[in-house]
């Protein structure tokens, strides 16, 4: 679930990591897990707490594909497009999701419920093609099963 962002709770998350030497990435993970976005206010706060320029924090937050500085949907669906999934029909699966949700990969549904993204190998190549919803992998899904899977969210 995506909680509405408040300064107080971001402060609370960041405070947990401020004395940890390697705390910046864990703090970004914690913010990402709670809000599915790294809000601008959090970038500024992280900059103050870790004494690192905002530009550098922004650089870090945008380097890693897990983090987004623009709001994603409540549920992030990521399709592996690496070669083992590619030859197993990943493109057909993506097209079917796009049709079902009425958006293209890289976009979020108007109701903010789903974001479709591409990703690279998630290390589950024994059962390609693979996609993940909120990090949970799905294997060998047929196009007919998609509406039922989406209905669970």
């Amino acid at each position, binding site marked *: 679930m995506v909680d509405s962002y408040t300064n107080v709770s971001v402060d609370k998350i960041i405070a947990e990591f401020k004395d940890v030497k390697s705390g910046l990435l864990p703090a970004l993970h914690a913010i990402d897990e709670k809000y599915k976005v790294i809000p601008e206010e959090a970038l500024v706060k992280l900059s103050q707490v870790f004494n690192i320029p905002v530009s550098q924090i922004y650089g*870090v937050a945008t380097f890693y*594909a897990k983090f987004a500085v623009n709001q994603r949907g409540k549920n992030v669906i990521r399709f592996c*497009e690496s*070669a083992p999934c590619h030859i197993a029909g990943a493109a057909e699966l993506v097209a079917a999701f796009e049709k079902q949700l009425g958006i293209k990969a890289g976009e979020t549904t108007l109701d903010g419920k789903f974001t479709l993204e591409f990703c690279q190998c998630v*290390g589950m190549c024994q059962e390609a093609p693979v996609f993940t919803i909120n990090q949970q992998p799905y294997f060998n899904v047929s196009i007919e099963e998609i509406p039922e899977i989406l209905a669970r969210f």
Partner: protein
Amino acid sequence: MSLAKEQRIVLNNYDKINPASIDEYIAQGGYQALKKALTMSSAAIIDELKASGLRGRGGAGFPTWLKWSFTAPIEADQKYIVCNADEGEPGTYKDRLIMDKDPYRLIEALTIAGYTLGATKGYIYVRGEYPQSQQSLNTAITGTKAAGMMGKNILGSGFDFDLEVFSGAFAFVCGEETAIIESIEGKRGEPRIRPPYPGTVGLWGKPTVINNVETLANIPAILNNGGKWFASIGAVKYPGTKIMTLSGDVVNKTFVEVPTDTTLYDIIYGFGGGVTGGDFLAVQVGGNSGGVLPESLLNTPIDFDSMMAAGGSLGTGAVFVINDKRDLLDVVKNMAHFFTEESCGKCTPCREGCQRLYDFMVKVCDGKATVKDLKIANGLARVMNKSALCGLGQAAPTPVQTAIKFFGNKFEEKLLQNS
């Protein structure tokens, strides 16, 4: 059919024990190697590793004892051992098998490494895509602490050691050892210029050894059974076993742990059960950075040096089979695309080169490439091999290069005539 046999060292406990239970790990002989190590000198442990001939299982094949021997003698107020568990090469899931099914083995190995190197703190950098592996390791770390084998004065030896799981955040380049260091330090995962090497100037400027999961997982068995035992298994120059993970057009999409003198043929046709959907066309070994190899090379043993001599690489041990019904050029285009997504952008040969090689493959697939384009692509690939800052950029041209080398006819068919 194949006569080759599996031999499980690092996967010895796979599905034999409850991965969360330290008691079950101990019942299988777990922590005997640590106990033995704590009675040995650092130099004696390194000698045992030297006798074993163990070399890195992450792709670079560097002798483990040699890496350790640089850092162990250094006097420093702090040293670090880092486990590279950022397994990201497409087609690879070997490290996941170890972390999910036998996490205590890895923790025991890291503790031995810490003791040998004089490193009191370790990190396991696990890719963000493996939350279940992170959980498995965290459970095992808690279990190890409860059993008194992590923390202060381990088993009365006077050695203190602490271990932490650090999550990656979806960046392939963070499988590169200096990019891992940057990432733990809270920076963009961009590789560092070497020298200095991490063995002397690593995490927060301190001497740091970085080893792959599978490499480390061999160490308890080496200490228990002796380096000589290990050296007698598989290929002489790259002894031991290797986990190979099969994907693509192969009957059994599975994993095997085999002696390193096993051939590609035995892996694909023996353990893999042969090719599905058509006849054999090509195999990419070692992940997306690996070579795309033809049938004539299937008798190559998988060990590091034999694969390299054949014009490929062992890499991570991924075996991605492609049948003759596939459009090979389209698959190679996909491989080239991967690097446009995953190049970190720090050095020019990789940042620009990956994009240009992908553009070349698009042009080839569209039937618009010329003979001159092919020559330029080959030249660019060599520049990247030689001048990219890290292994990612140096190996990024490999799929395109090897496809041109071994499947040149496929390119020729698609090149513009009279160009």
